[in-house]
């Protein structure tokens, strides 16, 4: 084991373990490969989710988030999430309520605590030639005064993490645009996803990389819905960062549950 400054409690949230467990599978394999020990804590609930729950009950949202933070504090652990929404809620609650252990997204753990060289050292099958469109997702970066992750408009750290795998991070139009998932207006929700997919295609990218299950659903299932609604034929594979990391570390794509994706991913690794 390498010595980390903090003990990490893996906060899975709802969507990843219950809708996209293939993301959890890759994350567990990849973190183990990096010798990061993430312990489980019993009794975590929904973070709670920062649009509908927070939008209807701010005080309740803060109470429940604080209860989740306390469960990790009591064990002297720092919460690590795989979801932008979870990290947004828990970081903001921490800022409001105070306390030393600022929760973090697992990609921040990789970049900040482990470092690029440590990631590179575990890469056995570099993703050479794969063109990746990086989508940070709003709640990984903003509000920047709370998160202090990276520049809220021209971040680099996720691009660097992608390139550490041997892939190329391609630039594309409106790269920092929101996925649209949290809007209740269909023209906004669908419009933003469609524009993102078209911009990614325009840049000739092989896949999209996200760090959030909501963005993942918006683009993966979203392309299926856009294809039906507009009689189009989009098919850009979508990955959570940890899925690409696991493949680069040498885990076989067929063992990582990619069959659960709506957009076929096989062509990326062919």
């Amino acid at each position: 084991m390498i010595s980390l400054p903090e003990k990490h409690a893996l906060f899975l949230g709802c969507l990843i373990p219950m809708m996209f467990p293939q993301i959890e599978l890759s994350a567990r394999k990849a973190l183990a490969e990096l010798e990061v020990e993430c312990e489980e804590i019993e009794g975590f609930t929904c973070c709670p989710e920062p649009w509908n729950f927070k939008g209807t009950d701010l005080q309740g949202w803060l109470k429940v988030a604080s209860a989740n933070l306390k469960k990790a504090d009591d064990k002297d652990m720092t919460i690590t999430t795989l979801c932008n929404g979870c990290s947004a809620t828990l970081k903001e609650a921490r800022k409001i309520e105070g306390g030393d252990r600022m929760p973090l997204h697992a990609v921040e753990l990789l970049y900040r605590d482990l470092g690029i060289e440590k990631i590179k050292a575990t890469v056995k099958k570099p993703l050479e030639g794969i063109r990746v469109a990086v989508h940070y997702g709003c709640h990984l970066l903003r509000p920047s005064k709370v998160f202090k992750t990276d520049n809220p408009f021209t971040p680099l750290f996720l691009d660097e993490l992608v390139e550490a795998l041997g892939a190329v991070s391609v630039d594309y139009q409106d790269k920092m645009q929101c996925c649209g998932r949290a809007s209740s207006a269909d023209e906004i929700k669908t419009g933003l996803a469609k524009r993102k997919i078209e911009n990614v295609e325009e840049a000739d990218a092989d896949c999209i990389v996200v760090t959030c299950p909501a963005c993942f659903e918006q683009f993966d299932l979203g392309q299926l819905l856009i294809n039906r609604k507009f009689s189009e034929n989009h098919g850009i594979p979508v990955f959570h960062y940890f899925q690409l990391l696991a493949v680069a570390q040498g885990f076989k794509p067929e063992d990582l549950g990619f069959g659960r994706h709506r957009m076929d991913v096989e062509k990326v690794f062919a």
Partner: protein
Amino acid sequence: MELDLKFRNELPELEEAGKTVLCFQCGSCVADCPASSFSAGFNPRKIVLGIILGDRELVGAGSPIWECTTCYTCAEVCPQEVSPTEAITALKNVSTEKGTAPENVRDIAEAIKSTDSVIAHNKKIESMRAELGLDSAISREGGVIRSILSGE
């Protein structure tokens, strides 16, 4: 339009909604707003103006506040450090208290309060996890959030 300058004092302070009074209507928030680019009815500058002037229609049924994607772009670009995203969240809370929040939003929030999860836990989820060799450590019985909220 009926206006009530005291309306802004009714917004929950948790979200720094009080800072909206500093807005000088430059429109930077609209220029970069992804929601505004698809919906002419959604305009964060006008929403903030509505808060300052006290337009209670903002918390009425069919208000555009629910169209916000909560991306916080407006908050990042605002030269006055106003956060329209947070102000909108505060408006949503008042709308919920008044009973004018969209039904699907209320349903999702209530479902989370009942099940402790965005998605109700079921056997299908467990078999899907088992297929991938993942254990069932995520089982949620429900009731935890309710007891936190009731202070038990």
